[in-house]
């Protein structure tokens, strides 16, 4: 007889359960913070965060702002893919933020200066991210530099380099680079009619389907190919992988190269949809890469889970703009996502705890059944 594992013991179900638990606790703590700041409007504020585009009365406006949320979800999804891909392979790619920045630089540079067509710009963004990731990987492979620290250093270097690089493309009327609509129409990603679906939201482009396809591709690479298996083996035990004849240095560099390419692609998809321009006086690394960490862990480190968690994180981040600014600030959403990442650290403990409880219950049940059986046979013998 085939034994069925109970729902609570299935790994996938446990992951979803713990992610939901993290979200609920995170929102609860966020609500508490709002209560402390100002008790009166706290409920409306947290509702506003959760509602995001649902606050608009008409269906058309809702669709339009739903489109905006999706436009911002695509780069976040790619950043979180970048992080989870590297993490599954044993590297913590905190440099995704910098790879994203340098991807934006390359993409926008190609779009603004020579005015190249969009596919060339996108490729440039991917290549720039990949090179940045590969530098990180090479430093780890050949010089044993901690990936987290070199990643952070590269984040800041990329930020300032991007500011220098894009300065000639600055719109003199503001602090940002020129809008692509004004300068080079051909550098903007095509919409393929997707904009019609979202009340003519011109920013809804092929970026969204591309990001979902990439998520599926990453899932296939990690779970179904020999290449993915080799990368994961290297991450689990460097020495064992080397002993088995895998090229461990090559694998580390390749991992971070792919991770960098993903983050660069995210930046390309975002900035080439012309939704936002680059501020050439930026003094902080964009939060996209760091939020990617949140959504990677919230999605249970699964590329498919990341699609949903990225949407959720972006949904509450944009919803943060809905709070009543005379009492609260939009950063409450960042606060909630930070709490959620912190709670994700406890997921492993939670799963272990759940399994222990379930095992104990199972054991007790078997013992009870045995005792009942023994009693029954004894009674039968007495007759």
């Amino acid at each position, binding site marked *: 007889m085939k034994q069925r594992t109970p729902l609570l013991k299935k790994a996938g179900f446990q992951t979803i359960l713990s992610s939901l638990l993290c979200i609920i606790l995170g929102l609860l703590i966020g609500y508490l*913070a709002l209560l402390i*700041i*100002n008790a009166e409007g706290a409920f409306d504020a947290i509702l506003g965060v959760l509602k995001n585009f649902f606050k608009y009365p008409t269906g058309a406006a809702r669709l339009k702002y739903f489109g905006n949320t999706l436009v911002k979800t695509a780069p976040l999804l790619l950043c979180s893919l970048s992080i989870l891909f590297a993490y599954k392979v044993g590297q*913590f790619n*905190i440099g995704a933020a910098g790879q994203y920045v340098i991807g934006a630089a390359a993409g926008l540079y190609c779009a603004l200066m020579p005015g190249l067509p969009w596919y060339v710009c996108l490729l440039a963004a991917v290549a720039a991210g990949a090179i940045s990731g590969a530098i990180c990987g090479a*430093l780890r492979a050949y*010089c*044993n*530099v*901690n990936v*987290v*620290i*070199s990643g*952070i*250093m*590269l*984040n*800041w*270097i990329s930020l*300032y*380099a991007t*500011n*220098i690089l894009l*300065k000639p493309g600055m719109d003199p009327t503001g602090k940002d680079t020129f809008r692509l609509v004004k300068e080079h129409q051909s550098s903007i990603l095509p919409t393929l009619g997707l904009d019609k679906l979202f009340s003519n939201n011109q920013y809804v482009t092929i970026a969204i389907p591309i990001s979902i396809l990439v998520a599926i591709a990453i899932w296939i690479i990690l779970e179904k190919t020999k290449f993915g298996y080799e990368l994961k083996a290297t991450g689990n035990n460097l020495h064992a992988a080397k002993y088995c004849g895998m090229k461990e240095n090559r694998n580390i560099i390749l991992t971070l190269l792919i991770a960098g390419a993903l983050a660069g692609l995210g930046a390309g998809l975002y900035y080439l949809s012309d939704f936002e321009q680059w501020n050439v006086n930026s*003094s*902080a690394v964009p939060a996209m890469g*760091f939020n990617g*960490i*949140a959504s990677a*862990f919230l999605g249970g480190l699964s590329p498919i889970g990341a699609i949903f968690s990225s949407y959720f994180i972006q949904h509450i981040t944009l919803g943060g703009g809905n709070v009543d*600014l*005379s*009492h*609260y*600030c939009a*950063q*409450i959403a*960042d*606060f909630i*996502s*930070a*709490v959620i*990442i*912190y709670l*994700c*650290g*406890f997921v*492993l*403990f939670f799963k272990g705890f759940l399994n222990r409880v379930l095992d104990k219950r199972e054991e007790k049940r078997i013992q009870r059944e045995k005792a009942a059986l023994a009693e029954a046979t004894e009674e039968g013998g007495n007759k």
Partner: protein
Amino acid sequence: MILLLQYTLIFAAVLLLVALGGCFSEHSGVINIGLEGIMVIGALGGALVMRFMPYDNATATFATRFGMFGMVALASVAAGVLFSLLLAVACINFKADQTIVGTAMNLLGTAAATVIVKSMNTAANPDDHSSEIMYFDQKKAFISNIGSFELNWFLVLAAILLVVSIILLYKTRFGLRLRACGEHPQAADSVGINVFRMRYAGVLISGLLGGLGGITYITVGVSLWKFENGVAGFGFLSLAVMIFGAWDPIKIGGAALLFGLFRALGNVHAGIPFLANLELPSAIYNMLPYIVSLIVLAFTSKKSRAPKAEGIPYDKGQR
């Protein structure tokens, strides 16, 4: 030139304090990536005291200035230690992944500080959405002028703490036990050392020093601080200083001076004729400390002297 020296020393003091914090934490076996967040929260604690403690620059005597300095330092230490408990509880008791929790703390520190400061400002004045705390007069209280050189008291404090750290780590029973827990916790446990307690000590000391580093950074390193910006990667630069300093307080002191110099160039390059003539964009100078640290790390990480057991949660059942 005096200005360059002044900025070098002050940035070096910040890096030194935070790197020493990282050093204590790692010697106990816990990697503290969350130093950046600890700095922000420590800075917030100190800034709040500066803002709300009654103080008038005109009538201040040395005693009141010193009292204020003490209170500010204490508040930063308290805030830093409290915040570092988040790391200690998660990583020591619950065996959570130290990298995830540290990263979460960095994001949490900046987000929480921004929310607190903004809501405070907005409560005082509904149109004020800035994330700054006003403490212009107060921060002048901690400066003694020696000629044209402004000696900041936090500089002195950093120097004292460096000496204390050396003694604590290498000349006391506590230091030996702490280091044992980072090298081989199982062996330490077998001779009766409480590994959990030692690791708590290491992390909380890093919270103490990180908090002080944070307040030093915002009172002297920058003119007026927006809490939204965090501390611009200083927590991570400090980790680079710590690695370059081979986890040894004396060498960390030297490394901090070197990194402090490169960071200071960003502030004063316009005032040095030779550099001003080069007419490089200022972003180049902003990049400099990070580039230098990357190069330095590339050359020094190969033969790492990191504590052996760092980053691995202690499990009593493991051999």
